[in-house]
């Protein structure tokens, strides 16, 4: 059993741990609980119990989709759009959405994970189609670029950073930066600009969304063999602030530290959303509930086909179809779906457990698809978090603490224009342990009280009133939050192998891009749906 001090020390550092332990208050008088993410039923999979499905427990359909995250949902959405509705979507939780789910309160909705989508380039026609359908495009500029209504773009002030007692505008810590710091920042930007403008022989960009539209030129691929940390060192970058900035980017987008992240992924973060050097990065589309808006859109479309609380225990490919056995966790009965084919839209690492016969003739190694763990806390505040200093940069959408291992918090009321009184803050903490598995175990060993205390202690450095102001904290532990683009993973070959169907099972997940973002999940959902539709038209 760890003491409060030891836990706090591990998560927020010793000085804050000591300070917090002086006051016994902790989380007293606060409401809240651990929500969602059925980590506790994962063991059923590992036990490999046998489930007998009664004859009346079987459903026959054309296609079964396993997993209702963005990939599974967009696959279903695509099938329906193409007039194919003979499918079911099996979702483990009560509510589909995966790491894009959101919650609601009488005041405002709030995200539990993914919370924005950079405005896509016009070339990403599928995604543009989705945005058009959702009425999120105001018009198209002369050059074809999307004009998004301002209320869906991140409202200014967008970001601020807390450092030694004060909040400053932006994400890069300018105050106190030396000439050398600024020179390096500039030089870094130039390096990135080179990659933004880089094109291969056939005119493809080095970095673009989705990953499948990136050049596979050896010069670019080579970046995947080193860590981002090593790449920065080789380029002569030593500035603490720049290193922090890049490390923050890796933790924010990938849940990994600088040295755990592939340089290819690191540069992807900075360059894939800039049209050409010197231009602004694509703005973000966001909602109070984050990407929950997209989830709800998809979920409404595929409502009739969705079976929730369905824990898939086995996927059995056969000569001319596939059988999926699942446990209805509401009634605790085993049920099954017989289909011509399946879209496997669950995390790829589960393939080995779930797909019968996979391990005997595995076309790829599921263990290569490593996930990392996060926890996300939603803090319900009865009043605004106070700045230490009146003239500090005000509460923004994204609020980052320079000295913290967390990613800071996002303000749910910001996008709604609610600038006074109660609010909901969404706090993100990637485990980013050396051993990814250790991160998950450590996370799952902590209870609500301990996790809530961690996030309060962390935020208390910037907001003295955080404990008084917070009335409730709900916490989501994401044991397998997102794929880890470690050096060698994205261009190591495993991804490519997994994109081919295994017998009648087609894979669809952002894991297959190596980068856990909405656009990638959406891309693979549509790709897999396309494969199914093509088969249907042939057969």
């Amino acid at each position: 059993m760890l003491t409060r001090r030891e836990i706090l020390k591990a998560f927020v550092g010793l000085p804050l741990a000591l300070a917090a332990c002086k006051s016994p208050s902790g989380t007293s008088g606060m409401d809240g609980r651990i929500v969602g993410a059925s980590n506790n039923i994962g063991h059923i999979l590992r036990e490999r119990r046998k489930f007998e499905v009664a004859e009346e427990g079987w459903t026959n359909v054309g296609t079964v989709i396993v997993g209702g995250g963005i990939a599974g949902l967009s696959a279903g959405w695509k099938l329906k759009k193409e007039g194919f509705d003979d499918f079911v979507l099996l979702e483990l939780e009560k509510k589909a959405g995966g790491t894009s789910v959101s919650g609601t309160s009488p005041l405002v909705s709030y995200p539990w994970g993914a919370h924005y989508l950079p405005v896509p380039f016009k070339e990403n026609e599928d995604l543009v189609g989705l945005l058009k359908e959702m009425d999120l495009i105001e018009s198209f500029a002369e050059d074809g670029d999307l004009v998004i209504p301002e209320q869906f773009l991140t409202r200014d002030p967008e970001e601020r950073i807390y450092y030694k007692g004060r909040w400053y505008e932006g994400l890069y810590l300018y105050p106190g930066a030396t000439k050398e710091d600024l020179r390096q920042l500039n030089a870094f930007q130039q390096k990135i600009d080179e990659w933004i403008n880089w094109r291969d022989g056939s005119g493809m960009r080095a970095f673009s969304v989705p990953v499948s539209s990136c050049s596979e030129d050896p010069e670019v691929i080579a970046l995947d063999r080193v860590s981002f940390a090593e790449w920065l060192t080789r380029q002569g970058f030593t500035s603490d602030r720049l290193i922090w900035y890049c490390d923050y980017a890796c933790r924010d987008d990938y849940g990994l530290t600088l040295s755990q992240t592939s340089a290819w992924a690191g540069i992807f973060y900075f360059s894939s959303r800039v049209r050409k050097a010197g231009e602004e990065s694509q703005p973000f589309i966001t909602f109070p509930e984050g990407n929950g808006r997209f989830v709800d859109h998809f979920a409404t479309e595929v409502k009739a086909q969705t079976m929730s609380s369905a824990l898939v225990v086995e996927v059995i490919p056969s000569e001319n179809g596939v059988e999926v056995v699942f446990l209805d966790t509401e009634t605790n009965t085993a049920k099954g779906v017989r289909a011509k084919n399946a879209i496997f839209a669950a995390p790829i690492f589960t393939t080995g457990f779930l797909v019968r016969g996979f391990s005997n003739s595995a076309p790829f190694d599921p263990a290569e698809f490593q996930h990392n763990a996060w926890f996300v806390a939603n803090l319900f505040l009865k009043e605004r978090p106070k700045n230490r200093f009146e003239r500090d940069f005000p509460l923004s959408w994204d609020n980052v603490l320079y000295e913290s291992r967390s990613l800071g918090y996002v303000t749910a009321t910001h996008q709604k224009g609610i600038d006074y009184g109660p609010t909901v803050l969404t706090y993100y903490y990637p485990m980013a342990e050396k051993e990814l598995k250790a991160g998950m175990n450590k996370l799952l060993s902590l209870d609500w009280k301990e996790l809530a205390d961690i996030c309060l202690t962390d935020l208390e450095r910037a907001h003295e009133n955080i404990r008084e102001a917070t009335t409730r904290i709900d916490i989501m532990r994401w044991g397998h939050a997102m794929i880890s683009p470690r050096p060698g993973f994205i261009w190591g070959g495993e991804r490519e192998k997994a994109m081919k169907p295994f017998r009648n099972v087609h894979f669809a997940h952002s894991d297959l891009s190596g980068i856990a973002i909405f656009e990638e999940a959406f891309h693979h959902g549509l790709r897999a749906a396309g494969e199914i539709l093509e088969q249907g038209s042939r057969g």
Partner: protein
Amino acid sequence: MNRRVPLLFLNVFVIATCGLIYELLAGTLASYVLGDSVTQFSIIIGLYLFAMGIGSWLSRFIETNLAERFVDVELAVAVLGGVSAPLLFFSFANLSYFNVILYAVVIGIGTLVGLEIPLLMRILKDELDFKELVARVLALDYVGALAASILFPIFLVPTLGLVRTSLMFGILNAAVGLWGTWLLFPLIKPGKILFLRIKGVFVIALLIIGAIKADTLTVLAEEGLYQDSIIYAESSKYQRIVVTRGRTGFALFLNGNLQFNSFDEYRYHEALVHPPMLAYPGTPKRILVLGGGDGLAVREVLRYKSVESVTLVDLDPDMTSLGKRLPVLSDLNRHSLDDKRVEVINADAFVWLSDTKTEPFDVAIVDFPDPNNFALGKLYSTRFYKLLRSKLKPESSVVIQSTSPLYARNSYWCIVETIEAAGFTAKPYQTTVPSFGIWGYVLAKQTPFDPPKEVPKDLDLAFLDSRSMEDMFNFPVDTDRPKEELEINRLDNQALVRYYEAEWRRFE
């Protein structure tokens, strides 16, 4: 002498307590008025300790008449420490070089306090052996500091306040000095004793008078921040509301920014309300007022007999209730907020517009504070004006108070162009409100139109007539639309807040 030694130790204790109190006072006061308490406390503690070092070092130059000098030092600390808080409040309100005074006071008190203990130890050195002396004097010195640091936040600040604490400890300090003339009697030259006592009594009397007047002093010091006397002050959930009264009339300040002066507010409000009311074709019935919790715009609206309902949306319930409660204000707005046609809604207008379904309005009057922060900036964005459009009829007219086209020319024209970008035809206009200077408004409709020409006589206005109406729509060169391209104020860039800050900063 020997039996007086314990009493002298009591003296050490009081000196130490007073010394630390002065230091805490300076630190607290500086963080009150300057903010940034970490910096203020850190600098003041450092300066104070350093000054004590200077005092201790200076004590070597005092060779003779130790007891007499000691009493002098005590009385000097009493005066300087005793008046420190009122002096500092006063200079913050009235002088631009407040920091100089602050640090001078801290160094002065520190130096004097630094002199005290070395002098006292030298006085006592013949009475006790050195080991005992150092142990007792320093121990009591620290105990005194402890007492002060506990008393100060728990008892003194909450019950007495800074000014009275300062004066009270000055008196205590002077009393100890005076008492010293008895305790140290054998060590003081007989000829000097009377003079010392007179000085002591004088200092105590001075500080007692100060303490009696303390209430007036506090108000005096705070009032220095405003030109006139404060008749009402409160901090609501959203802002600091202050009402002052002077020779020309009374004035309302929100967060220190002047909202109106009763002497010339009719100019501002007539110019705000009548152009949109008269620009509406036909008789305006349903009116929307956003902001304007003082009820003065509503007063002008209610001059029109045709008005059936006024919906006033203002963020701050304390402000709108003040418009009803405070007699000077409700007289000025002619009890407009109590009129049965008026409905007061306390909400952020942005959120209200996006979340509320209403019948369309004939006229909308937008009277927000100037866009000096992001929360206000959103109320001047294209999104806001589009939301507003959705609450209007095709023929409705709108007015927006738009800061000064002279002091903040880019800000003003940024508002005009933002309104145009939101699909309105804008007719910018300006007038002079002496309390504010040249002031700007924008009259707007959803289709091209001409500004109203006639001002009916029966409205019985004090400022606006047909001729002055026409004049308002002409812009002299120095306030006219700038040549350079201005950014449109959108939620995702908040360009206006940045223009506004840059322009008004020049006048601060």
